[in-house]
């Protein structure tokens, strides 16, 4: 399976694949493009990846999470190219016997995708400026850095 998509992610189609008779908890995270960043109006995002490596890393990450949390299902797809406000940039779905494992695994997968997989966002602002690689809020808290 490819974990990268240049096409709009069909979240509901992925959701349909996420159900399992042994899974009592299914968690879906959709990372979506918001219209502002640090007070600036965002026009859209553009995503790029070291594609072969990113795809392999996401596949390995899902397998690791399946083993660690005994997941029945683990799905992750990240968008590439231009992504508009309110569109899904990344989706992670985890299904486990109980919600605790499903939530924990989902959080782990999205954190690893954001911080370790070779994927990059370029923010395009309404005023015409652009900036590569804004860190997410959890890194801002831990480092104090608001930008690279």
């Amino acid at each position: 399976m490819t974990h990268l998509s240049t096409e709009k992610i069909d979240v509901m189609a992925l959701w349909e694949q996420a159900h399992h008779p042994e899974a009592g908890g299914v968690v879906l995270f959709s990372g979506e493009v918001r219209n502002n960043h640090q007070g600036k109006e965002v026009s859209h995002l553009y995503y790029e990846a070291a594609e072969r490596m990113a795809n392999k890393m996401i596949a390995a990450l899902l397998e690791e999470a399946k083993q660690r949390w005994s997941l029945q299902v683990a799905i992750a797809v990240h968008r590439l190219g231009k992504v508009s406000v309110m569109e899904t940039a990344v989706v992670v779905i985890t299904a486990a016997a109980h919600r605790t494992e499903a939530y924990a695994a989902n959080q782990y997968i999205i954190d690893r995708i954001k911080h370790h997989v070779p994927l990059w966002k370029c923010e395009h602002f309404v005023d015409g400026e652009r900036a590569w690689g804004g860190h997410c809020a959890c890194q801002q808290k831990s480092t104090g850095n608001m930008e690279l």
Partner: protein
Amino acid sequence: MITLEFFAGLKDYFPPVMEVRETPEDINRLRRYLIDQQSFATTLLEQCRFAVDDTFVQEDYQLRQGDLVLVIPPSSGG
């Protein structure tokens, strides 16, 4: 000779693909070489990771002729 592939913000300083005729001994020397080439990109290059054969390599990784090296800025997916 080795081939380098650059991504994201690094492409403001380097072409997407670049060949280096004299193979640097290791990643550390490659990093220093790139900083010498583009001092304006020093901060970003110091934060970069490097990968060979789609696997991250350490600073002392011994480069070989023909290696394809990915120069990987800090990730910002999601």
